[in-house]
């Protein structure tokens, strides 16, 4: 007779696994990958390939030769980090800078804390911010993509991002209206579709939203962080805009420009580095939204999404402690 297994209940298990979640994120990123290929051509493919390959390589090397533990490069998490890191850099970034970024993401951002699940910060953002501070010139010279219906291939022409144009113009004393009227300002439609200067994956809001709908429908992410993030960013930037529309851009432009959509749906929602309870996630989202707008409006950098999310990542343990789930049958203390 065959031997029977004896184990504690439950004896059945959901079909969702770490792997299916990670590969689900990769599937959600596919539309944005296509958009980046369309606008940046072979450069986009080069950046994504190098980033992913380097991330997988470093994870493998560190797990096999430094930690000497099980190798988990096929769990999909390094793949996600690789794609997200590529999405956060300009398409003409030299390969060796990318490799350094991958090493920082995987090595410092993830493995030094004990691997997947132990990292307090989003690994891709750790790598991105490291590169931004270490290589400010290369990280902020954005190749302009060909226009939405244009035919010219991407070439050596570089220019600032939507938010960069705004920041520069505002500090030169121009009003928002003057800047937006200038010919090199991309405008709403180009921001929505992706025809703007910027990092590889942040340019097309619509492709990113498509993936976000997929992740929400497969329950890979929940609505809490994105809704709170966008809500607080819109309300805060809306108040500023209503007070002084000549110095502050409107909320719609804030949402479409820069890395807002990418950050909101793909990086702030990173489950490892964000709070675990619904209440905590809402607090996290509100904080990230406020910080993003503050950095964009008053900070030295034109873009604040990466910093905002990393700062909120640091608050995650505190938020987890402070915002407990609603307990069943909570006894209300009298007196």
């Amino acid at each position, binding site marked *: *007779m*065959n031997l*029977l*297994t*004896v*184990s*504690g*209940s*439950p*004896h*059945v*298990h*959901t079909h*969702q*696994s*770490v792997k*299916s*979640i990670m590969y689900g994120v990769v599937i959600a990123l596919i539309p944005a990958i296509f958009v980046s290929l369309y606008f940046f051509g072979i450069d986009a493919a080069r950046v994504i390939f190098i980033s992913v390959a380097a991330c997988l390589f470093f994870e493998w090397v560190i797990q096999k030769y430094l930690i000497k533990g099980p190798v*988990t490069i096929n*769990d999909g998490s390094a793949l996600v980090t690789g794609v997200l890191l590529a999405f956060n850099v300009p398409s003409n970034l030299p390969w060796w800078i990318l490799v350094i970024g991958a090493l920082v993401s995987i090595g410092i951002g993830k493995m030094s804390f*004990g*691997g*997947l*699940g*132990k990292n307090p910060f989003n690994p891709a953002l750790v790598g991105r911010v490291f590169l931004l501070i270490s290589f400010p010139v290369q990280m902020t010279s954005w190749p302009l993509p060909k226009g939405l219906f244009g035919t010219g291939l991407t070439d050596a022409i570089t220019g600032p991002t939507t938010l960069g144009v705004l920041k520069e113009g505002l500090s030169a004393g121009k009003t928002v209206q003057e800047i937006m009227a200038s010919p090199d300002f991309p405008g709403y439609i180009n921001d929505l579709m992706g025809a703007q200067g910027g990092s590889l994956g942040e340019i097309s809001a619509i492709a990113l939203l498509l993936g976000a709908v997929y992740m929400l429908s497969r329950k890979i992410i*929940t609505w809490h962080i994105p809704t709170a993030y966008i809500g607080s960013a819109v309300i805060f930037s809306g108040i500023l805009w209503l007070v002084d529309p000549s110095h502050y851009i409107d909320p719609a432009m804030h949402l479409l420009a820069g890395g807002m959509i990418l950050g909101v749906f793909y990086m702030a929602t990173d*489950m*490892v*580095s*964000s*709070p*675990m*309870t*619904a209440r905590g*996630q809402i607090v996290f989202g509100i904080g990230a939204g406020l910080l993003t707008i503050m950095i964009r409006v008053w900070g030295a950098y034109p873009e604040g999404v990466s910093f905002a999310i990393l700062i909120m990542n640091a608050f995650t343990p505190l938020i987890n402690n402070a915002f*407990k*789930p*609603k*307990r*069943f*049958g*909570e*006894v209300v203390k009298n007196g």
Partner: protein
Amino acid sequence: MKTFKLGGVHPEENKISAGKAIEVLPLPAKVCIPVSQSLGAPSKVVVEKGAMVKTGQIIAKGESFISSNVHSSVAGKVTKIDDVIDTSGYKRQAVYIDVEGDEWEEGIDRSPEIIHDIVSDRDTIIRKINEMGVVGLGGATFPSHVKLMVPDGKKAEYLLINGVECEPYLTSDHRLMLERGEEMVIGVKILMKALGVGKAFIGIEKNKQDAIVHLNVICSKHPGVEVVPLKVKYPQGGEKQLIKAVLNREVPSGKLPIEVGCVVNNVGTALAVYEAVQKNKPLIDRVVTVTGKSVAKPSNLLVRIGTPVSALVEFAGGLPEDAGKVISGGPMMGKALTSMDVPVVKGTSGILIMQGAESKRAAALNCIRCGRCITACPMGLEPVLLAQLSENQLFERAEKERIMDCIECGSCHFTCPAGRPLLDYLRLGKNKTGILIRNRGKK
């Protein structure tokens, strides 16, 4: 449609045996009847080795308030009184009987005629339920007469009847509602009379539409008894979840349903109450589902208590080639058996045979802090935190984080994408925290 709000999961239902009518399992050659078949103190054996017993004769007496009588489920000769390893894996004292014929104890009404009139008064009802060894058949096996004696200062307003059967695979309550509905509802009326309540709700999940329709027809003749259809969600059969779903009342932490004016009983218990009060029949048999994806003949069987599990499996076509695990109960809360000789007891609702491939747990990975266990917990706890505290033996902190509220439904482990055995840690933590609390009480 109503359901409970907090947490919950949706495991695959797999109600393979739902369409199979209840069959009577032929009498086994031998039975082994554990004498402690309810929560509370073990009962005292009142027969001796070598004695001849009749079906329905008392063989062990419950002597304290929370304990219950046990009756012989067969006629025959007591061969020994010895330990047996029961479904929980612990050794229990048991009476072994060799079956000879099937002569029943006098006074038990075995006719199929349904007795509608409830002539017994409150005290007689409670006495009979106690004498006939009726316990909660939902799985917890709490002595039923105790539930009917509402403590001073508390008042029962509603009787809730649990026909939810939220465990995947199990269909014994479903079949019972379809085939014994009339008697079950009379049992409900008896319970209402004993409690002095005017209103009873029978909660049934909508995946048992035929049972909802059938009982609605029966209940139309019984004012005060109402069927409440519920949305399918596990663990709706947990009594706190059921009360929340039906009445939107929350039983406070650490308290019993009576705190919010409710008494909850399972449909099987209601039928046992009917048989005890109207027919003088002790609880000596119950409906057991035998099921599994590879089981040749998934069945719902009326089984005498003490019958070895192997006899049930044999009836359902034998142990499948690819069997990997045999479970007493459902896949969410059931216990994996260590042997096929384990006897069916009052709390056995089903025997589930799982295929080899699905029997083994996947290796546990690092927690990715996704918070799915927190979202799934129907008690609003943080299983990830409680598991960590238990692992690190921080039981005082675990107590503060309300580990004792855990109902062990398994939703956390079920939903964990990293396959972490959260409930294993929580069980350990509950056990140790419980010891801590008891010791504190002694000082």
